[in-house]
Each structure stands twice: as structure tokens, then as C-alpha cells.
């Protein structure tokens, strides 16, 4: 690990001020992803601003019947929250499908959203990777790309976003609240947080440098059932090959794109009365096969109808 300086922030305003004042600074929350990447010398911040103890760990009711989840709430606490379990079960299911008990106890809501890809070429510093080292090329394009993106990839990058939690949040139409270095607060839909790779896969979000995620806000639970399904190589503690969150008529896919993927084509087809299988077939018209990841297309075509049926059954039971 390369040397860095460390400070602990006492309030959010101080944290963003420190980030703006220090070159190559990073926020440190749970650290489960960032510290791992620093050991591998994939991340090398000069300064860490520890935001882990900022008073943003609460889950609170909002006046309109939704929930505000503080960015420092751990994954375990959010998954175990009684209101999340009864009103947003898809979120609990997605969170407990990710990582291990130890990791979920440390990982935060904000940090989970900003975790980096698990692409093997991003992790291997002896291989080219435009995300790790812009301009070096993409080793995955013609390499071992079994777990690469089938939607929205570019010739510069075919990595996927690994979060389970973010897939449920995308289907729930969650909003992200942030504080910018100038002290300005803003809020936007989660689907506008992450970017597609394009020519600059190293730029993964629309956050401005030094902007801090302070909360995730859930709207009141929509009508209809909810379901989360994940397929992976092991029964537990493994990144997904594909996952899907269904919330009423909303469908979001995980591990298939550079960001949580709202399946808007499938959603409109469902709304127009198509069967779940027809609906996901419409979405998959835009899917691409890079050689070894083509099986994901088949996987998604079966996974989504199963999840839609499960959600509909849940919805009928309400």
C-alpha cells in the first residue's frame, strides 16, 4: 500500500471541504472495497477522509410514506430494518445476496453504490485496462470475458457493476442525495448516478469530484409484488453472473452492464400486455455477445420471467 494521510471527518460539510482542498483525496466509509483495491495498488489515494462516523447511519420515515436511508447505514442494518423487510423486501433480498456477513456488517449504503467492478482485467495490474489505466486498452474484449456486460458496453470497456443492492434500488426508483464541495445539496434518480463506459470507463459516475453521497431515498412502495433473483457460480458469497429485481412493473438487471440496468423495453412490453418471456426477448434484442459471455443472454431470458412470475404471485397475496 502506498503512503497516504488520514483524517476523520466530524461533519459532512467538513468532509466535502477537505475533499476539495486536498489533491487525490478519497472518502473512506466501510473500506471493504477501497482498502482491498489500495492493497492491490489499483487505487492509490494520497489522502483518506474517513466519513464512517458521520451521523448519517439512520433509516428514517419520510413524510410521504417512503424511507430515507443514511449513506453510512451498513448493508446489514438496512437489510434487517423491519420497515425495509415488510415494505421493500426486494431490497433486503438483494443486500443479503451480496458479500458475506462480515462484509455486510462493514459495508455502507453509499460505499456499496460506489464499489468498483470485479472484472479480472481491472484487478490484474499486469494487463491492459482502460478503467484502471486510461488509454491502455481492454484486456477483456477478446479475453476471458465470461462475466462481462451484454448491455451498453463500448470498445473501451465491457466491465459490469457488481452491486446487488443497487439493482433493487434501481427497480424501486430510489433517489440519491448528495452534498457537493461548494456546500450545495442535490438529489437525482439512482439511474442517473452511474455512467455507461463510452470512451472514459475510468469515470464511473455523474458525481462531481469531492461530492459526497449523504442518503438514498425510497419513494412509497409501489403497488404489486417484489422479487430479487441472482445467478452465480457458487451458492453463496460470489459475485453475480446475472440478477434481476422486479418491483411492480419495473424490471432492473444486475451484473450485465456498467450500471444497474433498467430494462425499459421489457417494462413497456409488459405494460402493453406481452408475456414475461416476450418482454425480456424485446429487451435482449440490444444484447451483445463478446465470445464467452453469450450464455448470459440465455440466462437473463429465463431469469426475468421467473422473477416476474414470483413478483406477481407476491402481489396477488397482498
Amino acid at each position, binding site marked *: *500500500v502506498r503512503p497516504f*494521510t488520514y483524517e476523520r471527518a466530524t461533519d459532512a460539510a467538513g468532509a466535502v471541504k477537505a475533499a476539495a482542498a486536498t489533491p487525490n483525496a478519497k472518502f473512506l466509509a466501510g473500506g471493504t472495497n477501497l482498502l482491498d483495491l489500495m492493497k492491490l495498488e489499483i487505487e492509490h489515494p494520497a489522502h483518506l477522509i474517513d466519513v464512517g462516523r458521520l451521523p448519517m447511519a439512520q433509516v428514517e420515515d419520510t413524510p410521504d410514506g417512503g424511507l430515507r436511508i443514511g449513506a453510512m447505514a451498513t448493508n446489514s442494518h438496512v437489510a434487517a430494518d423491519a420497515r425495509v*423487510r415488510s415494505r421493500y423486501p426486494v431490497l433486503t433480498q438483494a443486500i443479503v445476496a451480496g458479500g458475506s456477513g462480515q462484509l455486510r456488517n462493514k459495508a455502507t449504503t453509499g460505499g456499496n453504490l460506489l464499489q468498483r467492478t470485479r472484472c479480472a482485467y481491472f484487478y490484474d495490474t499486469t494487463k491492459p485496462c482502460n478503467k484502471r489505466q486510461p488509454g491502455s486498452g481492454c484486456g477483456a474484449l477478446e479475453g476471458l470475458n465470461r462475466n462481462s456486460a451484454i448491455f451498453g458496453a463500448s470498445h473501451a470497456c465491457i466491465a459490469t457493476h457488481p452491486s446487488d443492492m443497487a439493482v433493487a434500488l434501481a427497480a424501486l426508483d430510489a433517489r440519491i442525495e448528495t452534498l457537493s464541495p461548494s456546500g450545495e445539496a442535490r438529489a437525482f434518480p439512482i439511474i442517473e448516478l452511474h455512467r455507461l463506459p463510452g470512451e472514459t470507463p475510468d469515470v464511473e459516475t455523474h458525481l462531481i469530484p469531492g461530492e459526497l453521497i449523504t442518503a438514498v431515498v425510497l419513494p412509497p412502495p409501489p403497488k404489486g409484488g417484489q422479487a430479487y433473483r441472482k445467478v452465480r457460480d457458487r451458492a453463496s458469497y460470489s459475485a453475480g453472473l446475472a440478477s434481476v429485481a422486479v418491483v411492480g412493473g419495473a424490471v432492473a438487471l444486475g451484473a450485465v452492464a456498467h450500471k444497474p440496468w433498467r430494462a425499459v423495453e421489457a417494462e413497456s412490453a409488459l405494460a402493453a400486455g406481452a408475456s414475461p418471456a416476450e418482454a425480456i426477448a424485446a429487451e435482449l434484442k440490444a444484447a451483445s455477445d463478446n465470445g464467452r459471455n453469450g450464455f448470459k443472454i440465455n440466462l437473463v431470458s429465463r431469469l426475468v420471467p421467473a422473477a416476474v412470475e414470483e413478483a406477481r404471485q407476491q402481489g396477488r397475496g397482498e
Partner: protein
Amino acid sequence: LKTTITVNGEARELDVDPRTTLLDALRETLGLTGTKKGCDHGQCGACTVLVNGVRINSCLSLAVMHDGDAVTTIEGVGTVGKLSAIQQAFLTEDAFQCGYCTPGQICSALGMLQEVADNWPSQETGDLTAQIRLTDDELRERMSGNICRCSAYPQIVAAIKSVAGELA
């Protein structure tokens, strides 16, 4: 950086490079070598300790992040002369071969049993609103962050079940 961490009930003052993980601080600075370094990347669980009663991977945490925290390591769970119930259960059930993962397995199991007592769900939990019972499937799922390369898993499950009491 000066940091005070209460380790196994005793306040310890450290002055460490910010790069020092909690794991290295425990092992190298404080000489508590019961906590093991396996993969050093959060994948194996050998470094699991309890921080304020909650299990975490000590390899993926900086010592300076834990100023004021209370850490329990395997040395705080029991001693050779006075084993805790779960340590005795691992012996009785023959729940290890080489023993390298055992301190992490035991600390993880203690944290896991508290999570079940607090009714935290896992991906094996069917009804998210009911009281959770620690079935074998629940137990295996909840312990998936701890790898045993000697593959003593059936005995580890038996050992943990034998101290789970009314949770199972």
C-alpha cells in the same frame, strides 16, 4: 497516528502508520497472533474479529478507523485454562484439522449467533417478517464468509449448532 482501541477489555494505545490494518495492529503491534492472516483480501474470513460485538474482516479495516472501539479477538473469547463453550464445542466435535481458520470461524460464529438472536435475515430466510430459526441451511449460508480448506464444514456446523441453544 495515535489511536486507542480497547482489546479484550483492556485499553491499548497505539501509534501506527495509517496504512496499518486492524489485523496487522493486533498481530504485529500488540502480539495477539491468535487472529490469522489468510488471504488479506476479505475472502477467507480467517481474520474475523468482533468490533463492538459485530463480526468484521480485520484485514479490510485500518487500525486508525477503530479509535475508541472495543475489539474482541480469539484471545478474549477464552484461554487454554478456561475455554469458552464454543471453543470446547470445536474440540468435542473435531471441527478442525490444521486449525488455521478456527479463530476466525469461532469469532464469526459468535457474531453470527448474535445476528440470529437479533433476527437479522439472510438469503436463506423465507419469510422476512417471521422469527428466524437457525436451520443447517441458515447456518451454512451465514458462515459462508469463513473458508475451511481442510473442509471440516460438517463438524463446524455441528459445533456451532451444539452451542446455538434455542436459536436452532
